[in-house]
């Protein structure tokens, strides 16, 4: 059964140095507050999984939390580069970052395989491209009926999955709605999981019968962190802060500016700082 904890306790208990950690959220519901807590607690040597390492992973990488990144698209969506990610890959600052690179289809299928307790995922892909030449974790499997060859990648099975969701009820069930990305798969594929939520409710009220719900017994820790997805968004709560995504390009461009921003906005603050963004607008 999920336990309700502070975000500080949840991160302290669930995430250890050297863990394989997936913080997911496909544009929507990105667990920024949890990422900041990991920075504050100074985790090191993490292998970070994420289809779209955007600002949150730029911050973790820039602060030296990650040893390796497994990903399929690393950019500031609609804006441009992730300067901290590039600085790590191109110049080894603050230290060298190993990368394992895939396509979205590969990562999405690999999470799905992880949630399904399969050792690998197969799909029609990686044809005529160079990624298989630089990533030994891309192989082929043959259909035993037709002889056709398909792409194969290992399932993703993180030590810890971290997501942000809309609501939890008092029994610890978690509700997602809207663009749900690979968040359900991330929790189900992981040994342990942390879910931050906008709010705790007595019950979800009348729901679509097929609503995306993670039952309490599939989640390790729940922390109530209103606004915890900012600058991404929470459908029905607050919108994506596109202006911050644009501003991040300038903030992160040089190392000193980045460190100053982290000091003021992460190290000197706590999860409560996100509440200012968590006002319900829709």
């Amino acid at each position, binding site marked *: 059964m999920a336990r309700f904890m502070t975000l500080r306790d949840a991160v302290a208990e669930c995430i250890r140095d050297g863990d394989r950690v997936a913080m997911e959220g496909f544009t929507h519901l990105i667990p920024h507050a949890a990422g900041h807590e990991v920075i504050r607690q100074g985790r090191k040597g993490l292998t970070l999984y994420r289809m*779209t390492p955007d600002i949150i992973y730029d911050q973790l990488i820039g602060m030296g939390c990650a040893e390796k990144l497994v990903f399929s698209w690393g950019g500031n969506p609609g804006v441009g580069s992730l300067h901290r990610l590039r600085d790590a*890959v191109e110049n080894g600052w603050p230290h060298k970052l190993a990368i394992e690179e895939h396509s979205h289809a590969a990562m*999405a299928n690999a999470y799905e395989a992880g949630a399904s307790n399969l050792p690998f995922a197969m799909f*029609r892909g990686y044809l*005529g491209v*160079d990624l298989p030449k630089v990533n030994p974790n891309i192989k082929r499997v043959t259909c035993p009926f037709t002889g056709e060859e398909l792409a194969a990648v290992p399932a993703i099975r993180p030590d810890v999955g971290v997501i942000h969701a809309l609501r939890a009820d008092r029994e610890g069930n978690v509700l997602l709605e809207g*663009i749900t*990305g690979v968040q359900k798969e991330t929790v189900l594929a992981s040994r342990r999981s942390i879910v931050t939520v906008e709010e705790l409710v007595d019950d979800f009220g009348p729901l679509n019968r097929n609503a*995306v719900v993670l039952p309490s017994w599939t989640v390790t820790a729940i922390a109530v962190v209103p606004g915890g997805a900012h600058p991404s968004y929470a459908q029905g709560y607050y919108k994506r*802060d596109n202006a911050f995504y644009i501003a991040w390009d300038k903030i992160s461009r040089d190392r000193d500016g980045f460190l100053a921003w982290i000091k003021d906005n992460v190290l000197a603050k706590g999860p409560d700082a996100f509440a200012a963004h968590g006002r319900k607008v829709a």
Partner: protein
Amino acid sequence: MTNHTPTEMMTIAAARALKNDDVCFVGIGAPSAACNLARLTHAPQITLIYESGTLATRPNVLPLSIGDGELCDTALTTVSVPEMFRYWLQGGRITVGFLGGAQIDRFANLNTTVVGPYDAPQVRLPGGGGAPEIATNCGEIFITMAQSPRSFVGELEFITSMGHGRTGRERRAMGVKTKGPSRLMTDLCVFEPDDDTKEMTVVSIHPGVTREKIAENTGWPVRYASNVGETPPPTAQELEVLRDIQARTKKAHGGSR
């Protein structure tokens, strides 16, 4: 002649490639503007799909990311990302994949991964995202990119997504049955693959653009179709709708801080 920018001409030429009954997998940036312009002009029933899971979406402003709330709010329904890549893209239900890229070669292969050696890149680009599988699983591929010597290159250092392959013969050799890149709309002209060689060939030049200008901005000797036309200039309606949505978009994205 209308007063328009080369980028506007590019977006409008790209939009015109789309048909009302297309089911289009939309890349972010230039493709997204073109697809929504098509939807707001000549193709009101077009089905737009973004890889974030939104099916048949009708945004009023252009999304900054592929998963803005606007896309979900205006969609018929939204599915998980694994389902999007399994049932919808791989399922063969998309007629057109619309891509952009950082670099392209004469066979419309794209590079969005690295400039320089993979292990010690001069420039680390974002990576492939959905493109590698969009390129082979959609019925055909449209590409839109601004031309420059740095982006239209003689030889790609890294193929992120396959166009017609290194020699133009790879798709058939691999048994890939989809068409691949069938149209490339730039800020200067429109390319289509030669029937035999699959090399991207200019079929139409935008108003006011010269062959010299195209040559200066293309890293390989450009081939022209036997019958090259002039791209019709933007209509007043096309320009108005495009500028309207871009104004709405700028207001929406810049206004929250």
